[in-house]
């Protein structure tokens, strides 16, 4: 897993596009799955599947106050560019 989610999107765009192709070729002939996390769609020229994840809603328990807890996140995942298919799922914090 290559986690670039905390990196500024501008810095990622300045990376040469060949970097992603090299990474893809490194893992294509192996049984390894490379998961790239980024704040935007950076590996535009490489193959593979792209999943756009957006936090749709925060879920809290109870009313505002000291006893309140974060219950989780409702995330929308969209796959495909021309005819995107969207799925909603929950991530639990408790």
């Amino acid at each position, binding site marked *: 897993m290559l*986690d670039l989610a905390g990196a500024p999107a501008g810095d990622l765009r300045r990376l040469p596009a060949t970097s992603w192709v090299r990474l893809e070729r490194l893992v294509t002939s192996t*049984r390894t799955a490379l998961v790239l996390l980024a704040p935007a769609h950076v590996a535009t020229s490489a193959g593979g599947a792209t999943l756009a994840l957006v*936090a749709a809603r*925060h879920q*809290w328990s109870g009313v*505002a106050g000291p006893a*309140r807890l974060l219950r989780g996140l409702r*995330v929308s995942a969209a796959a495909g560019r021309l005819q995107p298919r969207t799925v909603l799922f*929950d991530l*639990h914090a408790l």
Partner: protein
Amino acid sequence: MFAALACPSSPPAGALLELAREFAPRVEEAGPALVLLDLAGLGRLWPDPRALGQALLEAGAVRGLALQVALAHTRTAAALLARAVPGLTLIVPGGEATALAPLPLALLGLPPEQQELLRLWGLRTLGQLAALPARGLAERLGPGGPRLRRLARGEDERPLAPAPPPESFELQLDLEWPVDGLEPLAFLLQRLLEPLCAQLVRRGRRAAALELELRLVDGRRHARRLAPPAPSADPRTWRTLLILDLEAHPPGEAAQALRVRAEPTAARRVQFSLLDPAQPAPEALAETLGRLSAWTTAGRGGAPRLLDSHRPGAYALAAFNPPEAARREPSSPLLTPGRVALRAFRPPLPAEVALQAGVPRFVAAAGLRGPVLDCAGPWRASGDWWDEAWARDEWDVALPAGLFRIFRDRLQDGWYVEGELD
């Protein structure tokens, strides 16, 4: 000819054997306080056997051992006399039976019932037992009877079984000219490591750790010790690890002599699984870890280990020692509920937080700024007041940029963004 060293007072373990090895290469440990020496071939060194016996007594006295020494042409006679007669006893060839005759039967270490039987026969000394006919003893005691008679006459039943010499995996190289720099040192290390590793392989051993000592031109000694996760007998791996370690800890002066000592361990036997993913070779893993450790400052490389503490993010570095791949059933990710992860900022980002009635309303930090849309908290936590105290109030806040965890350090009275929840 044989010599026997006996020490009536319990000597330290291995002390007699160590003393005996200084006089003869073939020695046998016949008991906790009895050692036999094969003196064959020592005639040119010690023309007079009495002088050799005196030297053995003096060597024992120097070490604080009150020895009883006997020299005879059979090992049985030497052993029995050394256990029975104080000081030095020297027996001429053919005089073993005569010398042993007055000694008590108890020296043979017989079982109590057999000793009682011989006592009932009226036998008290070895000479009385030796005088009995072998045929009569065999008829009454079985095959053990003639054997007892041979022992009482000082005759050997078997040759000396020498104890194997202690294994030493140490090599030293004295240089005519001092060597400075790692590159020539690498060649010299290779000259030491190749025969050392070959010796380890011949004995079916691997080196669990390696000690390198450099004697420097200014008289100092630069000593390093390496203990990789897996034992190895590969000279190339050890050379790479030593050079990486010397790069991180340079000796500072040219070296005049090198000494390498290996701590041997049994060779590794691993049965790899056909189904598990391939594991890296231990030698390659040790080399990679050595390189990573050399790149980090002060060798801060390893595997994180959680500490038994409530302090968020408390961990320590331990040696990277991956367990063998455990067989487990693949779990379906679709059936496992997803969890919110904290993407921690290391170190936490200092922040400015505006409060309203004690609740965060606005957060500003490097690359992060916005009003608090929703929040939960505070959760107060503290600990380690006896050591490095910490105390904090944590909040989960929803900002326009996402969901973040912030906290107020109550000891320093400052706000920080700990990480992003996603």
